[in-house]
């Protein structure tokens, strides 16, 4: 198999697992973890394309580094929000958040 395709298939699988997790998990932290999976799937894609594409263009690899840091910032803010929600509501089950109509 074309090595690039192998990477793309793994990445698509990882992305799908992430989407599956977001849609089925009820715990806010677990959803956050699934979202991180999706971001990393995109990262894998970027790096695979950079590796098997034009070797003089490093945009994909640079982008992957940016995504890592942005994901960390996002996770920190997300966890802080989860913490605040827990302090106010005493749970983080997204199904039971219904003061506002979904």
């Amino acid at each position, binding site marked *: 198999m074309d090595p690039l395709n192998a990477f793309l298939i793994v990445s698509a699988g990882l992305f799908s697992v992430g989407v599956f997790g977001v849609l089925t998990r009820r715990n806010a932290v677990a959803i956050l973890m699934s979202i991180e999976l999706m971001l990393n799937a995109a990262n894998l894609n970027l790096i695979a394309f950079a590796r098997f594409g034009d070797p003089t263009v490093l945009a994909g690899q640079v982008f992957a580094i940016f995504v890592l*840091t942005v994901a960390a910032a996002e996770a920190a803010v997300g966890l802080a929000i989860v913490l605040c929600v827990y302090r106010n509501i005493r749970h983080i089950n997204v199904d039971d958040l219904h003061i506002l109509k979904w």
Partner: protein
Amino acid sequence: MLNPYIPVLILMAVAVAVAAGMSVATSLIARIFRLRRPNPIKSQPYECGMTPIGGARVRFSVKFYLVAMLFILFDVEAIFLYPWAVVHRHLGWLGLVEMGLFIGILAAGYLYLWKRGAFEWD
């Protein structure tokens, strides 16, 4: 006109199938192949090879949470130092100034946290 979208549809179908297939397949495979020979030592939680003391379900102070969060932030931002360090000779003064700015912004965040008391345990 819709023809070009058929590959996209197929891709989506594959993605859904992979997601559904994986969750079903892993549980099936695990059910078929797993061995069940538990003994008390095996089912003990692993704690660096020591005999565990107390249950694992103790509550941690929420303060650890904050420390972990801040650690992630500053830890991951350090990633930018590595590529810079590899080529800093090539980048010259401009690169140094840019990195100084970057670290300056991080330091501003650090100063903010410090002044807000995020590092105080009590």
